[in-house]
């Protein structure tokens, strides 16, 4: 079943059109990789799906579980199950990770009409989840991402993904700023969260990440459109021949 349907999406930032009619369908349980050179619109797509301010959709639509995603406020999208793992997770000084996780989780539950977690129930859950991802407890006591290494920041994103249980995870250039060991740890976390109901959209420049998170479908973006889609072998092909061949196609 289609989880996410992006249809002929056109997006402007200020006066410049960045996406020129992009179409993409992601089904439940699938892992999609979106590859492409800098400036091809990969991050714009992830931002528009998540609802980041500053983008103007001029045409097309996005359906999520059959509903009009663009009509929802960004926090409603989160409560519906859209999760964006940020390329550069922000630091929030003075707010402990634990407090942040609880506030966010309860806000989502409240928005869905579910009961909020009590403190003991929440603590139990967060301990379970962090243990399963090998995340040390002391990380939870520190300010959100404050003084975290690149690897820790990405693991914090994976922890939130595990805790909020979204149905769509968009990983925006998760590999940037990570060494190979940190990358493997983060990718292991993502793989552990993959399930038949949960889809992943992995945005990346490099094939490297796809050695660890193996996609069902690979899309190549160039100049604001998907110019080619294929199986995981497409990523290897790109690694060998580069993006230049698609610049002309777009």
């Amino acid at each position: 079943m289609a989880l996410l349907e992006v249809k002929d999406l056109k997006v402007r930032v200020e006066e410049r059109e960045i996406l020129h009619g992009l179409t993409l369908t992601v089904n439940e349980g699938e892992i999609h990789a979106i590859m492409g050179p800098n400036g091809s619109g990969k991050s714009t797509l992830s931002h528009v799906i998540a609802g980041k301010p500053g983008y103007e959709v001029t045409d097309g639509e996005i359906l999520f579980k059959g509903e009009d995603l663009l009509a929802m406020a960004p926090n409603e999208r989160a409560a519906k199950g859209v999760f964006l793992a940020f390329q550069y997770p922000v630091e929030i000084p003075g707010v402990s990770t634990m407090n942040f996780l609880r506030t966010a989780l309860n806000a989502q539950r409240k928005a869905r009409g579910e009961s909020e977690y009590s403190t003991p129930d929440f603590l139990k859950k967060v301990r379970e989840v962090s243990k399963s991802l090998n995340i040390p407890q002391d990380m939870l006591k520190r300010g959100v991402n404050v003084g975290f290494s690149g690897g820790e920041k990405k693991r914090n994103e994976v922890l939130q993904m595990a805790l909020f249980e979204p149905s769509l995870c968009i990983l925006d250039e998760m590999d940037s700023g990570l060494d190979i060991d940190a990358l493997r740890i983060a990718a292991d976390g993502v793989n552990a969260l993959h399930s038949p109901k949960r889809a992943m959209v992995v945005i990346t420049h490099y094939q490297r990440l796809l050695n660890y998170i193996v996609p069902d479908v690979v899309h190549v973006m160039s100049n604001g459109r998907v110019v080619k889609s294929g199986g995981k072998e497409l990523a290897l092909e790109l690694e060998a021949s580069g993006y230049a061949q698609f610049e002309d196609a777009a």
Partner: protein
Amino acid sequence: MPAVQETVERVKRIDVDQYRYGFETLIESDKAPKGLSEETVKFISEKKNEPAWMLQWRLEAYRRWLTMTEPTWARVDYPKIDFQDLYYYSAPKPKKTISSLDEIDPEILKTYEKLGIPLREVAMLEGVEPKPGDQDPNRRKIAVDAVFDSVSVATTFQAELKKAGVIFMPISEAIREHPELVQKYLGSVVPTSDNFYATLNSAVFSDGSFVYVPPGVRCPMELSTYFRINERNTGQFERTLIIADKGSYVSYLEGCTAPQRDENQLHAAVVELVTHDDAEIKYSTVQNWYPGNSEGKGGIYNFVTKRGDCRGDRSKISWTQVETGSAITWKYPSCILRGDNSSGEFYSIAISNGYQQVDSGTKMIHLGKNTSSRIISKGIAAGKSQNTYRGLVTAHRKATGARNFTACDSLLIGDKCGAHTVPYIEAKNSSATFEHEATTSKISEDVLFYCIQRGLTQEEAVGLVVNGFVKDVLQQLPMEFAVEAQKLISISLEGSVG
């Protein structure tokens, strides 16, 4: 719409008229005639049954005040105050002498109820009738000396404090009952000639708290006073004097709210603290007075002089303040570090919104050897407000080894507000070590979006970020106040984002 843009839009629409505590209580009151003259001063002194020396003290202050002019150096702007167009004294008409809470005007108790201050509950739960054997040692007690308008109408916990030898009473009573202490200390930290508003206060102060903690005594409970302005056009002139004798400790909590007003209200309080050898005073304030409406009309003018004198060696004074209200705030809780090895602290959160103007900070005057001070100031400006930190750190020639650390952080919400930092640093000896750090930041769109992507609303996101920003200071508040302060911060943020 970009997040910050949206915040700005919302801030534009703020309606401080929704001020939560804007209500009046109808009770009979007993007023001095309008305006200020020697007669007014005599009227007040007479109302208080004051001894002749006290009246003399007031009159000297009044005569001094006549020669003084209003200070204009602060970064605040307001229409000239007509000091003859104000009432200087107003008291609820006492029906009889009060010995228990039951005898208090129910209207007054109702007011406290609306404020969420469970005076009655506090009294019952915490000590008026303690159940024998049912005391939780972890539960700290709060003694409430409630100030309603200008007169203290309820004083609780006297018995237990008396047992410890602590004197905690309205200053009007202390003037009659402990004249030797009041005469010795009143005006010894903030002299009657100190500044325009302090001098005015000295002439017409109505009431306030008096605390004396004898040598070696750790005050068995937090002392707390709630102030509230209720009478139209009545300036409030509180006078508080706290003395911690050798080796003693006391924590004093002050909280203020005020009802909604059209006309500006003048408030000029004076607080004096004295610590002797090895003594410590911790003074905490949560201030939430009417800030004026969405056009900047009305609101309290708050001109406060708060100063502590670390008179003894190794003594300590710590100020913590959470300032969210008032149209104009002019307030610099300061420490004179006179004793060797004495230390002073100033922790401040100042939130301004709408058209509020805050000019606040501290002075750390290092006179003794090896004195140390610490200043942590967090200013948050939203709406069209102006928020200034003004601080002075100075080391006297003899203050060898003086140390200060200052951190001033400002957070801006929207682009119509201003944050300003004006630090003065003077070291008159080469062994002093002064550090100053300052940052100014805007609440970042990326941070807000991160929180919103995780399910928070815009308002919740701002609240979370701001509470994180002020955390270092909130932690300094006693537990009871920390909760109240967090609530106040959310209330003022409700105004700032819609």
